[in-house]
């Protein structure tokens, strides 16, 4: 179990992380997503005990990373954004060294590593020098490193970065398998990737958590359903008629040379005036070809949430 409470970190005048708090339980794969410089890697580095926080606490299996760092780190496997690899070592020697650092008993190292190498598909590369490996294989060694010592909690910072599509699918399977028995926190820039494997998403923007929920909840609590799309064949512009419908806050129109027009009708949150809109359009003489709520994708949710914090921060785009 990983618990993070009120983390703050500043680099000089730049406040990189501002009060990040969340929990990740056993059996959960939690995705951390945000734009470049949002504070994901800094947060992960603080959880892993590589850097300190200015304020706040991190508990790994109830061990405070500042007060009991050695005990806490024993339960944590971490793969940073740039895998920390020694290019002059072979894959096996490197992982053997990591096992020693993680306190794996000497007699158990070989069998332990065999399982890990099989899991991440590195068995046939174990005697190769890390310096001669491709980026994809280096990334796998990084993931294997995080699994050494069989920690209950695993943090992976952009684990699929630089991998080809085939490798991405394979690594995704590895992470999904890990998620059954471990607590996994994974960061990525690619929303779809996280959406496919994560049970929960944490969206970070400007060092703050702007959303922490399941993907279904994130979509449902967004503007989904608030906007209706209406496609009509119309004799005249019916924008004013639609604006007059109760609870409608905004109407935008796009006309086509075929004589059709497309309207986007925004309603007050929690309301559904599709029937009233339909009646008003018909009464105005328009032939309704399509009326449906606009479906929101995870990308829309992400942009909506991060744009809100930008506006709150006063950034002009």
């Amino acid at each position, binding site marked *: 179990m990983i618990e993070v409470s009120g983390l703050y970190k500043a680099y000089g005048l730049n406040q990189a992380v501002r009060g990040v708090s969340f929990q990740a339980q056993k059996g959960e794969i939690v995705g951390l997503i945000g734009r470049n410089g949002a504070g994901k890697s800094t947060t992960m580095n603080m959880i892993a*005990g*590589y*850097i300190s926080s200015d304020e706040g606490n991190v508990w790994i299996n109830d061990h405070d990373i500042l007060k009991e760092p*050695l005990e806490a780190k024993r339960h944590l496997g971490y793969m940073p954004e*740039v895998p*920390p690899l*020694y290019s002059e070592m072979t894959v096996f020697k490197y992982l053997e060294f990591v096992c*020693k650092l993680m306190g794996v008993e000497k007699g158990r190292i070989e069998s332990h590593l065999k399982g890990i190498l099989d899991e991440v598909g590195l068995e046939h590369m174990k005697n190769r020098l890390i310096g001669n490996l491709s980026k994809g294989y280096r990334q796998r060694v990084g993931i294997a490193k995080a699994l050494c010592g069989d920690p209950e909690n695993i943090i992976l910072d952009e684990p699929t970065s630089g991998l080809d599509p085939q490798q991405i699918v394979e690594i995704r399977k590895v992470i999904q398998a890990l998620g059954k028995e471990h607590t996994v926190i994974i960061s990525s820039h690619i929303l779809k990737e996280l959406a496919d494997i994560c049970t929960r998403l944490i969206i970070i923007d400007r060092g703050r958590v702007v959303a922490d929920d399941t993907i279904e909840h994130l979509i449902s609590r967004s503007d989904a359903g608030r906007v209706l799309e209406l496609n009509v064949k119309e004799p005249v512009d019916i924008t004013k008629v639609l604006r007059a419908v109760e609870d409608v806050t905004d109407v935008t129109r796009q006309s086509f040379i075929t004589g059709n027009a497309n309207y986007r009708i925004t309603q007050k949150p929690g309301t559904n005036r599709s029937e009233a809109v339909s009646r008003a359009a018909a009464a105005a003489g328009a032939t309704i070809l399509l009326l449906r709520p606009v479906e929101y994708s995870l990308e829309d949710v992400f942009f909506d949430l991060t744009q809100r914090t930008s506006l709150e921060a006063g950034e002009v785009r």
Partner: protein
Amino acid sequence: MAGIYKKEMRSYFRGLMGWVFLALILLTFGIYTSVLCLSKGFADFSLVPYNAQFVFLIAIPLLTMRSLAEERRQHTDQLLYSSSLSSAEIVIGKYLSCVTILALPLVISCLYPLVLSGHGRVVLETTFSTMLAFFLLGCVLTAIGLFFSALSTNQFVSAAISFCALLFCYFANDLGSLLSTSIAAAFYFFSVLAIAAVALLRVMTKNWLAAGVALLILEGGLLLIYLFVPTILDGSVAAAFGSIAVFAKLETFSNGILNITVLLQYVSLAWLFVFFTIQAVEKRRWS
């Protein structure tokens, strides 16, 4: 710690650095043994380490430059500091590997006087006490080199700074004798030193109040000494430089004196710089 130690040892000898260090020390000892003991026929082997000490100016920065600086440059420090090892274990593991590599050529060189003693009289007591002091001097300089390696991300910058620091230690006695011995000069010298120390404190703690209080105490104390007991400052500059002149302390051993005080000074200085290195690593992580 054992894991770090073994990894460092392998790394030194898989690359060139370990072999270059060994060759450099053995070559220097070999040349001085040939010239002093074989050609000139000196029975006192302690002259060899005494004359060879300058080799540390080059060899030690070579040995320590990549130790911590390279870990940071390659981001492999993330592996070490997120593992279940403490910073002290990491630094001590690395320091012990450097000290082991330092000891290897010296152990081999200790065979020379034993071989020579089969062909004539060699003062083995003086020889081995000087070799011990030479090794401990190397330990001090290694700790200093490791400290500068912890402060930099570039191994060549780390080597350059270490070289300058060791050069300063090498010429410290001469530099001290060049400065004025007057009490007023000593007062100004220590005032500047106090300001530099306070500036360092401010940089490390980012606390103006603590730095201000420290400056007040140091400069106030110095002023009181200067006004009321100025004799304390008499010869103090030379003494201060003398305490830095770790190379010069080796002379007493080659004169046949087993100077326990100097040995303890070496051990203390080595421990102090290892401690500073641990603090430098910790500070970088926690600031």
